[in-house]
């Protein structure tokens, strides 16, 4: 395979028109900030232009661009690590009372069951509610949750990026976040009044 080989979809000048919006939505969902998402789209396209001869044609251009974007998103988080107020994230661990468990670590309130949970995964409305539950999280918590769920970063890397001092604190924060999302979906979807 030579670098002069061209692929039918290899038309860099049209990438912005063809994939710009899709890349933007992908970045926006993960970064939760419009101008950050715009920057990352630009970074991605610039990197792709420079690396176009490395495109091997065994994936769609879009998949390739998204692959580049995943790195750019993590880069962005790294660069903005200091802006994330993780002090406040960790602060909540010591200051606030545990709303989920009693002093013996048992559930404070019984866990409601959900009827027909799998059906929800086929309903657009469910995803709209779920998105609004994520949006209702404190911003730093939402960022951490999204980064954890959508990247393959190790826990040590996550701690570094989000400025959390110990992985132990990371598990506690993540498990509280999940509980909060679960409760939100419980209240607004499965057991909504």
């Amino acid at each position, binding site marked *: 395979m030579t670098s002069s080989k061209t692929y039918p979809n290899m038309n860099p000048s049209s990438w912005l028109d063809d994939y710009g*919006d899709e890349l933007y939505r992908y970045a926006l969902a*993960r970064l939760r900030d419009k101008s950050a998402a715009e920057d990352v789209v630009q970074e991605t396209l610039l990197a792709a232009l420079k690396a176009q001869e490395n495109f091997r044609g065994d994936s769609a251009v879009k998949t390739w661009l998204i692959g580049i974007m995943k790195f750019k998103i993590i880069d962005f988080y790294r660069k903005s690590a200091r802006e994330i107020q993780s002090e406040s994230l960790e602060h909540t661990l010591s200051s606030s009372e545990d709303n989920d468990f009693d002093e013996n670590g048992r559930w404070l309130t019984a866990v409601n069951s959900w009827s027909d949970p799998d059906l929800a995964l086929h309903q657009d409305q469910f995803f709209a509610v779920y998105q609004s539950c994520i949006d209702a999280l404190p911003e730093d918590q939402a960022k951490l949750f999204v980064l954890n769920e959508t990247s393959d970063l190790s826990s040590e890397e996550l701690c570094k990026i989000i400025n959390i001092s110990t992985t132990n604190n990371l598990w506690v924060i993540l498990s509280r976040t999940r509980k909060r999302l679960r409760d939100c979906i419980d209240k607004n979807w499965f057991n909504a009044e």
Partner: protein
Amino acid sequence: MLSCKQVSELSARAKCEGLSFSDRIKLKYHMMMCKGCQTYHQQINLLQQATAKLFNKPTGGDTLCKEARERIKQNLKSDKSKD
């Protein structure tokens, strides 16, 4: 035996990195005995699937605004001319 709180934290950890054999056994044992945690963790699994679906195909109608699109276009052009 682990408490429900410990199980919840351990399972958050399990998602990020592997657990030791003895942690896995402790987790399994607790789940066998505790209906609440069984239900809870099925629900968390469902939400995990939902999260994957939500983020792999963001559906909102957000699009690049005209200004951003124009700016990116210009920057791509000027970067190209540097080569």
